[in-house]
């Protein structure tokens, strides 16, 4: 296939992973020369520890939390696993009446599958899934029901949904949870660099490096010091004994550099990205009068994700045709096996299986420009015509 050269392509899948920032790459390469185990007591170890400490201090400063609140992980999934596995078990060990966890029905599988695994395990925990409205926002009565009886140890909800971009109201969620003594966790993986972080309102927050321009393979769980963790990860006892394993100074340095840039330019970039998304929305509506945008323009959202449905189109075919024309896009969250499952996020928002077959997620980031919008809008009419022809083959 003769596909367009890299520089003629439009990358519209920043929610899957964003472009590596040169500052993060430089920081990684420089820090990687300070080899040594940060836990060793000799000179090489101290040198690596120095690089690591500097990176952690910078991350803490940027997030406006003490350094001791940071637990480095391999990414967002591991951070979510700690928050949804080690914390509920840790809380229950101290307070046997805390036998439940509350999760948003639209949460990422890193949260939902972890909670469900606990529900199926020995000494199962009760999993209370909180419903959302058609804007993807948690329904207050559902949150209250999940907190009822003060049995939930942790309430978890993504700050920004990875498929739709819907944003939750954390001051309100935190107030409700605190009234029941329930800890609050947010997966802020998609939020960082796009919306302000609710650091003061939460006890636990998951972050991922590759969504903000650091390499894949590094994440952070921000955890207040009074949050109890069960020892689910055992080993040398690094990082409060919560997450054992030799710390990666180079990844921490890259994370710090990417985070610094992302937060420094957040307000300016977020406004630009919002403008581009609005132009995409208008342009697509002109091309396809039948298009259904999953979130109305005025509902709470991050501004970097535009999720929509082209009724009657086959989204696998649409992604193929867009790719061929130089556009990298997605139908929702990436899936390892390549088999499309009806989106549980859309189902939870009341979208039918038939409609979610024509789904398209366009997500923007720190490298997005008007040219990306123009390329997509130029490629879409023909791609959509063919994707509908494929959709009509379905019996």
């Amino acid at each position: 296939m003769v596909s367009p050269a890299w520089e003629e392509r439009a990358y519209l899948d920043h929610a899957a992973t964003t472009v590596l920032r040169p500052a993060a790459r430089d920081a990684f390469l420089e820090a990687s020369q300070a080899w040594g185990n940060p836990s060793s007591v000799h000179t090489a170890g101290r040198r690596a520890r120095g690089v690591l400490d500097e990176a952690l201090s910078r991350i803490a400063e940027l997030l406006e939390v003490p350094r001791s609140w940071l637990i480095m992980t391999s990414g967002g999934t591991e951070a979510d696993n700690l928050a949804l596995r080690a914390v509920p078990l840790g809380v229950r060990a101290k307070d046997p009446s805390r036998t439940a966890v509350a999760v948003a029905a639209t949460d990422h599988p890193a949260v939902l599958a972890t909670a469900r695994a606990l529900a199926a395990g020995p000494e199962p925990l009760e999993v209370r899934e909180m419903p959302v409205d058609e804007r993807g926002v948690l329904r207050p009565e559902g949150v209250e029901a999940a907190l009822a009886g003060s049995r939930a140890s942790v309430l978890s909800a993504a700050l920004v949904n990875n498929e739709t971009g819907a944003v939750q109201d954390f001051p309100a969620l935190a107030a409700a949870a605190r009234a029941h003594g329930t800890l609050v966790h947010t997966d802020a993986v998609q939020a960082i660099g796009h919306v302000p972080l609710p650091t003061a309102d939460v006890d636990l927050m998951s972050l991922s490096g590759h969504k903000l321009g650091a390499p894949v393979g590094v994440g952070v769980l921000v955890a207040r010091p009074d949050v109890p963790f069960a020892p689910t990860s055992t080993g040398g006892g690094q990082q409060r004994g919560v997450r054992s394993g030799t710390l990666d100074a180079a990844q921490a340095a890259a994370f710090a550099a990417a985070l610094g840039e992302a937060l420094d330019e957040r307000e300016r970039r977020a406004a630009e990205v919002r403008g581009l998304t609005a132009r995409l929305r208008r342009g697509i509506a002109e091309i396809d009068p039948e298009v259904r945008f999953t979130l109305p323009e005025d509902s709470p959202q991050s501004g970097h994700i535009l999720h929509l449905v082209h009724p009657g189109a086959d989204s696998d075919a649409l992604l193929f045709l867009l790719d061929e024309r130089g556009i990298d896009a997605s139908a929702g969250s990436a899936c390892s096996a390549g088999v499309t499952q009806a989106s549980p996020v859309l189902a939870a928002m009341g979208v039918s299986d038939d409609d979610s077959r024509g789904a398209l997620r366009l997500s923007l980031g720190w490298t997005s420009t008007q040219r990306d919008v123009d390329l997509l809008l130029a490629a879409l009419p023909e791609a959509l015509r063919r994707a509908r022809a494929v959709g009509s083959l379905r019996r």
Partner: protein
Amino acid sequence: MKVLAAMSGGVDSAVAAARAAEAGHEVVGVHMALSKNRDQTRTGSRGCCTVEDASDARVAAERIGIPYYVWDLSDDFHDLVVEDFLAEYAAGRTPNPCVRCNERIKFASLLERATALGFDAVCTGHYASIRADGPGGAPSLHRSRNQAKDQSYVLAVMGPEAARRSLFPLGEDETKEQVRAEARARGLGVSTKPDSYDICFVADGDTRGFLERHLGEAPGEVVDADGTVLGTHRGTHGFTIGQRRGLGIQQPAADGAPRYVVDIDPASRQVVIGAAELLSRRELVATDVISFEPLAPGQAVHAQIRAHGEAMPGRILEVPEGAAAPGTVGTPDGALRLALETPVRGVAPGQTLVLYDGDRVLAAATLERRP
């Protein structure tokens, strides 16, 4: 041409895709995901349906230098192949799911989808040969040069229209070893994978267990040709015409000769057993005819009734309306009738009948119960 290469993750389809690309076609590799809940790793001789197979196909595509996608055809596969397989067994017939998959998925769903996306042809690693030597350049389907690997029998149902838009780059290869050697030379890491034989959607290879799980129990009688009840069974789907073992009969035949399943009547749920002679058929009846060229009564043909069987000489007795023109499908009611020179044993309804003239495929049809 713009060519879609179907890539199972095995050696044949990888080499076929590489040859199509080398021939100058614009090739895109596609792995068909045929099951919603796929095993992560391969076990036994299944060779197409695991995540590991998809990953092998991806690595091969990368090595060839072509784009690669996974297409989810699991709904079509379930509805058109797995459900059909179960319904056929429930009706006392013996289906061939690989034939149905070629007919309804590879050379239908996949091909239609490819055409809608702007592809000119689908390329697979099948061992058969397509030549444009029919009247007016019409395509003809031939046995592969490698007779041991020949797959024309399971491909014949594709019909001439699909053949016109298909490429089989391995059809002229003499041996599988050539293909494996070429895979090694091209650095396609799949060259050591074993060939696949089992039914891909029966994960553990236990077809009878699969049928019992899905069809449940439907008890009936085991009778002899006179209707005398000799025993009972848990479902006709446990039997196939010509079967000798596992009949569940206590007393031996009066003459001590072995007995076989000679008929299955789904309506009464009776399994009829009898001596080997009762299995013999000289006349074959088949419906759903798909022909590559016109058929005529009196025409001498060779008939093959199972995947690894021999083609047997015979003569067409009757041609259903519609099947006289190539590419058309006979109505289910209209039957193709055929007389064999020598009687054959074990004609199972539901199996595919393929008619040949030498190595050239004339038509495919589905065998029916009685002459």
